[in-house]
């Protein structure tokens, strides 16, 4: 696995798009792997009772998927400083969320790079955000 080098990246560089199938397995496993046992994340009947058509992804899983998306590109020696996300439309099973991202700022002094990203599903934007990472 290669780590991106700070000298090799610049503002406007794009991350490879990533399409993530949203499944019952991903939503429930993500919730449990983040110790989030809220029924809306694993119990369809409970989710319907709450006004949702199906179980919906929890925020901690969204954060995890954001990290995965950026880290696949930035590599094993990149260091995450910030993950700042804004939440939009829910992720329900049967959908696909596609991540897009690009470098929006660089800081040569600290060798940090800001990645602006958005994850979109069929209902619109599930998540937008910025991730600050340090590169060697």
């Amino acid at each position, binding site marked *: 696995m290669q780590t991106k080098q700070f000298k090799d990246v610049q503002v406007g560089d794009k991350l490879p798009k990533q399409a993530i199938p949203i499944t019952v397995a991903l939503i429930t496993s993500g919730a449990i792997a983040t110790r989030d046992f809220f029924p809306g994340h694993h119990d*369809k009947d409970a989710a319907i009772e709450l*006004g949702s058509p199906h179980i919906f992804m929890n925020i901690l899983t969204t954060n995890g998927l954001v990290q995965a998306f950026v880290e696949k590109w930035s*590599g094993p020696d990149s260091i995450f400083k910030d993950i700042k996300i804004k939440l939009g439309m829910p992720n*329900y*099973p049967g959908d696909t969320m596609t991540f897009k991202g690009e470098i929006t700022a660089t800081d040569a002094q600290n060798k940090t790079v800001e990645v602006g990203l958005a994850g979109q599903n069929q209902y619109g934007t599930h998540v937008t955000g910025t991730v600050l990472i340090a590169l060697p």
Partner: protein
Amino acid sequence: MAKYEWFAEIDAMVGHQYGRIYAWDKVNEAMVRQWCEVMGVDNPIYTDADYAAKSQHGQLVAPPAMLQAWCLAGFHDELAPGSTTDNPYGVLKLLEAQGYPAVVAVNCDLHFDRYIGIGERLYYTTVFDDISEEKTTALGTGFFVTLKMVFLSETGDGKDDEKVGEMLFRVIKFKPANPPEKAKPAGSDNAAPKMLRPKPGISDDNRFFWEGCDAKELRIQQCKHCEKLQHPPAPVCMHCHSFELDYKLASGKGELYSFVVMHHPHVPPFDNPNPIGLIELEEGVRIAAGLIGVEEDVSPKIGEAVEVEFHTYEGELTLPQFRLVSTKESS
């Protein structure tokens, strides 16, 4: 802002600091591996001890985005021993009592001071940072509530515990604008309802056009009297006012007269960005339609050659769309 008497009580709580909430377990390999598997994280610094030992971390560490997970209450909704009984989300309960039942998370900002090693035990404290004035959004009317959490690692040897990260969490607690009806359950294929393209309004005047699409023909209205063309279809000829109308098959070839690429807002289920063209057909009339073959960073050009393609959505809606001829070979 003295809109509600009860608000003063909540507003006075801004700045209140809540006590520690401990993690049930030390940061551990098993939970990290499971998290990495689910999220699709394959960086070996989290799961391969030999690799991690040689990395800048010198040991296995926890994925940063996992920060919040360590201190959650768990299946029984009970906090780990030693945790405060002063609920940091108490302010939301107070708003609920005033008739703001719904909650939606808006922002989650994580900051990492350093990576956390296997074996560390975390806890966090919370500050009720801010409550907005009452706001009306598309969701409904309510308040934005901001909490700030600081995560620390216990040293256990009398030294000051070390701060390892922070989280800002903002929710809107609101009265729904459209009280949630019982949602329509997802279909038997175990998926949430699919967003569909809106269907056209079909009338006696334009039926020929849409039936043409079904037959993969681009039909343009033609006056029987003056033989001129017009689009979109109308009940009367715009040139000679005759009611005697027929249609002519267009070749489907034309050029881009104008276009717009819609980036915001994302209107599902349309592609985002969504390129829309005004096409001047070689027969001389213009038609607005979706463009195909537009690459995200390459702007279409006015005057560019385009050609019709028919695409069927959900097996029942066939639309004429126009492909940039320059992209025809490559795709």
